[in-house]
């Protein structure tokens, strides 16, 4: 094996490009940067990545300050008695004085009202954003922690442990996600339906379903990376020095896996956002709190006469998923040493 650490590792072991010219000013600059800093620099120069990062940041701020935003516009997600706002014989659409599609936009309800229920669209949109992002974020955290732990253990320990973990991973990969979610959700709902915390249980149940069926790709990826890394000299030397296994895993292996983990997570987030919307569309997501998927499901019927009602949640999902995906791609490009120039 060559002494050069190779392009696919970052962290303590790499000693920088051996052919660096110490005389030139530029070379000095490069030599002084950590790989993460290089990646950030490249990310900052990627215009699409910057725009996407701002969009994502905006969504995160909307999600965090959903309550404040609703207060500013004086709207809320509280149920109102529908008949006072809706045209009873006009297909249950809002009366013209309360906004589209038959009237102009009003300041009381900037995004209009939902047909049939007279829910305020803006309030439901911002709280839908909160639901969407918090579910996706928590599911990503659970899935990636599980995946990384199992991947590291399987890859490093090998043998029987590896075989068992790989079998479990393959087993979970064979279970069709949608089918499992469609089966599990009603069972859990039925078990806890009488609990006063039913809405929270439903929320965490969804996170659990997403996480339980989302950790396998990252576990496989990490296991593969670990398999190739553990034969490397710096791991061997750590072993020879008598470093405990836990320390090797955390201090030697994990930092070298930062790049693949970041990339997987950044692509997992948008996948979970759309999975949440899909499940809500199918009627098994959260039903007790606002959700984009749920609104899309209700709005499909009204597309022809009240398209705005459908466009609002669609815009949310599409914009968020698209920006997260593009950002994830940019992060991968930035972290990929093979594209280093």
């Amino acid at each position, binding site marked *: 094996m060559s002494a050069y650490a190779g392009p696919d590792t970052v962290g303590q072991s790499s000693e920088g490009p051996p052919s660096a010219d110490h005389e030139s000013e530029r070379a000095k600059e490069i030599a002084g940067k950590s790989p993460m800093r290089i990646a950030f620099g490249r990310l900052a120069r990627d215009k699409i990545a910057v725009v996407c990062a701002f969009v994502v940041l905006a969504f995160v701020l909307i999600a965090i300050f959903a309550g404040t935003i609703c207060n500013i516009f004086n709207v809320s997600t509280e149920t109102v008695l529908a008949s006072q706002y809706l045209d009873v014989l006009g297909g249950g659409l809002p009366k013209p004085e309360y906004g589209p599609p038959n009237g102009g936009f009003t300041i009381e309800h900037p995004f209009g009202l939902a047909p049939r*229920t007279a829910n305020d669209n803006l309030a439901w949109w911002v709280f839908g954003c909160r639901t969407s992002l918090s579910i996706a974020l928590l599911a990503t955290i659970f899935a990636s922690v599980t995946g990384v732990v199992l991947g590291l253990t399987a890859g490093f320990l090998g043998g029987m442990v590896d075989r068992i973990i790989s079998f479990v991973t393959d087993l979970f990969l064979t279970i069709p996600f949608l089918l499992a979610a469609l089966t599990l959700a009603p069972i859990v709902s039925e078990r806890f339906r009488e609990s006063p915390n039913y809405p929270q249980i439903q929320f965490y149940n969804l996170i659990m379903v997403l996480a339980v069926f989302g950790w396998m790709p990252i576990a496989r990826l990490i296991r593969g990376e670990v398999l190739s890394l553990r034969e490397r000299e710096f791991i061997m030397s750590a072993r020879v020095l008598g470093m405990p296994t836990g320390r090797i895993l955390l201090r030697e292996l994990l930092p070298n896996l930062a790049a693949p983990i970041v990339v997987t997570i950044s692509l997992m987030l948008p996948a979970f956002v759309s999975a949440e919307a899909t499940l809500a569309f199918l009627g098994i997501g959260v039903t007790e709190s606002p959700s984009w998927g749920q609104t899309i499901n209700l709005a499909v019927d009204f597309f022809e006469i009240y398209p705005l009602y459908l466009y609002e949640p669609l815009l949310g999902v599409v914009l968020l998923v698209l920006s997260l995906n593009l950002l994830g791609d940019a992060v991968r490009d930035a972290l990929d040493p093979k594209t280093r120039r």
Partner: protein
Amino acid sequence: MRRSKPLAVVAGAALFALAACGGGGGTSSGGGGQSREFGAADEITKNADQAAPAAEIQGATKGGTITVELPGDPGPTDLDPTNGWSVTGNSIQQALTSRSLTQYAKNPDTGAMELVPDLATDLGTPNDDFTEWTFTIRDDATWENGETITPEEVAWGLCRSMDSTQFPSGPGTEYSQQYFFGAGDYKGPYTGKDPNCDKWGGVTVDGQDITIKMAKPFPDMDWWGAFMAMGPSPLGKASQPPDYGQNILSNGPYKVESFRSGEELVLVKNDQWNPESDPARHQYADKFIFKFNADQNKVDQVMLSDNTASQTTVSTQAGSNNYERINSELGDRLVQQSSQCTSFLAPDYQDISDINVRRALAWAYPYEDVWLASGEVPGVTRVPANSVMPPGMAGKHDYFADGEQFTYNPDRAKELLAKAGYANKPYPIKMIYYEVDPLAVAAQKQLVKGMEEAGFEINDIAVQDDPYNVWTNPDDKLNKTLNLRGVNWCSDWPSGLTMLPPLLRTGATYNTEQFSEKSIDDEMDKITGMPLEDQADAWGALDEKIGTEFFPIIPTAFRNDLFVFGSKVGNPGGDGAIGAPYYKGLYVSK
């Protein structure tokens, strides 16, 4: 008859909506849209003299295929006539494939429905106290295989209807097992291990006559005879359930070409059907295709497009979101039909024992809001109800249980609650709702909002299953803890007998409020023994008495259906007897 859609609790009504919203509502429908108001259904009369064959419908032509879309309706699970109690199954099969003792026909001049003979030559002859009925079976009616229908086969069909274990969802469980001789004792030919029905003395055959013996006076046998369960079945093994339900022998103008439960039923002409033997059915179209569980929005778009396929299509429902467009663009081809149904809230009679609380519930239910949220068109598909008996039923009293028509009036609800001792604390209500349907969830939210403003505290439990499975199961743990349930009920024939006893008799399956008063039970028994001409009024009076004295069950809505007919479907119209399109008279115009 039970409505298949489990939206019972969320179904309310509001005619006042029409008046209240007339000004601000903004009826922006342009063109030929007609404003629809709820017209009470015509009374159904008897016409024993209608003779076969049925009079030709003016302008009717032969040939073509009629497609019937049934949005959101799963249809029957099997086609066994004995098991058919749903509005959908019974309306299709009784009209097209499976004949019975009597049937309904539309009077071409008045448009009203009439009870006319079918396999029997007349509407039956009762003895003086209605404990024996004799029907003479026609000798010229045939099965699809060409064989003549014998009185023995009709008797066998009647005997099958006694088997409530084999046919738990059949109408026989309510009527045969309640009124026929041996009710309660004879378990039926399959459950009672009596494959030839020798042990039952309920029906005797004498030549072409069959005589039915009753356990107690049953004056409505002629109406009950219009159920396909009161028709013939092939003797012995040939009609063994459950196989027979997938492969029935037809005797109407059409026979089954293919049937996939929940998807599709295809009927084709039965060339062995003898028009000379049938006073009401026709055989104009070559083929009927019934498509179950269709997507409502898709069907609405198909009907609106008026393309070649949709011109010969019938839809049994119109979406409220497209109602305005359909109403203005299709005009007369949108038919509103009273479905002889009432929706109820059913407060537990033992738990909510104070009549003031039950009245308060009626004032606290946000009728119109619940409706909008559940996708109904207030004033068109749902109107406010005042009595158990639906409009158009003979003898119905126009009474008001608390002085005037119930509307959403939280102040009045609070006053009544104060009388009941709940002036300063909310009255606790525990109920369930169907979480799988987003419209049911939205409607439940409206209900909670409205009721909480009126002084109630709602603990609502989401269920994943048809709420009827909880409400009608006395052993269900959750059900025991509920104090507010619901039920939708449609009359099986236009008599109070099919509304009051199934909903209010002690121990009846759909008595979900668990109402039980000995005096009322006795009165119901007494009415069935009264002279026929007095019964209708007696049922109406009993309805009023129960409503004003006990108020055990809160009528929230009378229900209407909207049918959409393609432009080439001739003779579009509804069947007021059953709440379905009038399949018997449809044809494809050229």
